[in-house]
């Protein structure tokens, strides 16, 4: 196996008596696009929060690029090369599209207050570099012409792309996408698929949490399936698709829905 980017070891998260994630382990190799799927309530989102550091693990460990990240706060994870997007797009209203992408660069250019104010030429040069890098990212997602638009003026599909541009700006080692296709129409989903394919070809490691099973089967090299907090499958898409445990988990849910 190639170099491991992310290693999740027995990650567990309890909410009171409820075990949302129960001793889940998996690994993501360098350059691999890994999908995380499961029926509603499977613990995907909680798992995602544990990796990004939004919530602490109750037990288990998270390793990133060989370093133990288990107790690192969320803001310490992004400078290390972990970037994420949000299911409910969380961009900054009132700021422009370009400014939002520039914010993605914050950890790299994190500078002291004094330097920000008195840096002189060096500061001006960094300022220009930040702007240029953000513009490059917008160009990559095909939104360069909307750089000065305000966030409020964009469609949901465009916002997801802005969010991806923001996450990519830092040149992350791992890009984590939380339900990137949720709420998108078919054309927007296709566009997103093309974008992810391009990133995959560039060798970017990715973790996708997704509801849309067809979308994720096409976009990923490997799929981890969760059901009621535990991992029930971890394999290539073709085999996961025919895995009886996975089928029954999904059909079980459909049956439950039908019974309602």
């Amino acid at each position, binding site marked *: 196996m190639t170099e491991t980017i992310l290693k999740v070891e027995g990650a567990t998260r309890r909410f009171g008596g409820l075990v949302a994630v129960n001793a889940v382990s998996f690994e993501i190799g360098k350059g691999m696009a890994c999908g995380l799927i499961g029926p509603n309530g499977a613990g995907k989102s909680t798992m995602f929060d544990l990796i990004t550091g939004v919530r602490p693990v109750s037990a288990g460990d998270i390793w990133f690029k060989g370093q133990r990240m288990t107790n690192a706060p969320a803001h310490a994870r992004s400078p290390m090369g972990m970037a994420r997007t949000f299911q409910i797009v*969380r961009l*900054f209203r*009132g700021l422009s599209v370009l*400014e939002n992408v520039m*914010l993605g660069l914050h*950890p790299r250019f994190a500078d002291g207050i004094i330097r*920000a104010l008195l840096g002189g030429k060096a*500061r001006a040069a960094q300022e220009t570099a930040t702007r240029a890098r953000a513009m490059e990212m917008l160009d990559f997602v095909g939104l360069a012409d909307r750089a000065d638009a305000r966030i409020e003026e964009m469609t949901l599909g465009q916002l997801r792309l802005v969010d991806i541009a923001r996450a990519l700006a830092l040149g992350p080692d791992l890009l984590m996408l939380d339900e990137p296709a949720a709420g998108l129409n078919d054309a927007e989903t296709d566009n997103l698929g093309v974008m992810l394919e391009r990133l995959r070809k560039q060798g970017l490691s990715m973790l996708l949490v997704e509801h849309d099973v067809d979308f994720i089967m096409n976009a990923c090299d490997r799929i981890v399936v969760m059901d009621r907090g535990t991992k029930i499958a971890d394999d290539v898409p073709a085999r996961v698709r025919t895995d009886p445990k996975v089928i029954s988990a999904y059909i079980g849910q459909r049956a439950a829905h039908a019974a309602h």
Partner: protein
Amino acid sequence: MMMKLSYLLLAGLTNGSVYGLIGLSLSIIYGSSRVINFAQGEFVMLGAMTAVMFLATLALPWPVALVLVAVVAIVAALGLDHGVYRPLVRRKAEPLTIMIGTLAAAIIIYGIALLVWGPEQKFVPPILSLAPIRFGFLMTNAQQLAIIAMFFGFLVATWFLLYRTRFGLSIRATGVNPRVALLMGIRSERIVQFSFMYSAFVSGMAGLMIGPLLGGQIGMGLLLTVKGFMAAILGGLGSPFAAAAGGLAIGLMEAFMAGYGTSLYAEPAIFVLILLVLIVRPYGLLGDYEAERR
């Protein structure tokens, strides 16, 4: 006739500049922390009173005194941040609770000032000359002009900081959503700390400059906080520039109402006016983006 108009105009602009700078300070802190800092006027008081200490008592040259005044204001701001804001916010206090905390800080600062300087009004030595300068019918002096220039200077500096630096971008982002800002590696506590320091600096300088005209008295802080808050509400708390403009408006109204009416009714009349403005525009004369952010 013209003399009176000129006098009132200049007095209004000068006081308005100070109200505006306090409004700007309040707005910057509100933007990053959602807290109204009731101790803001105390920074102005500290500016004026430490100016007395450094310029008159210790007779230091003014550039040295200016730096020391700034240092005192910033140290007081750090005290407010570490003594009130952080302990409360880390215990998950609501902004309203923290506001009461800043009120407590204002009382403490006032108490310490009482011990140091006593209750009587002090003469604050002006850095610039108070000798009259005449431009046509306008009568002014160098100190007044310097205050008005400082007002616009701080407006430009604040604009540059917020809109032309990455640090300013992170200040604005924190104002929109501190939680998401944190996920992007922006530590909102540091941003809040900076806003306390910056606004204490602005207010301290305002105190240093307005002291010679208002006179230095340890009780001046609360009134100035109220004026600055009125400025921010009138202009729009969501934008430092709107808040600053509100300050100028209040300064001018106050001067003209006192000059052409009676000073007895100046305050209530301004309050009525602000009330009317707020009925028509609940987010202030110039502020509306604050509304859509919610």
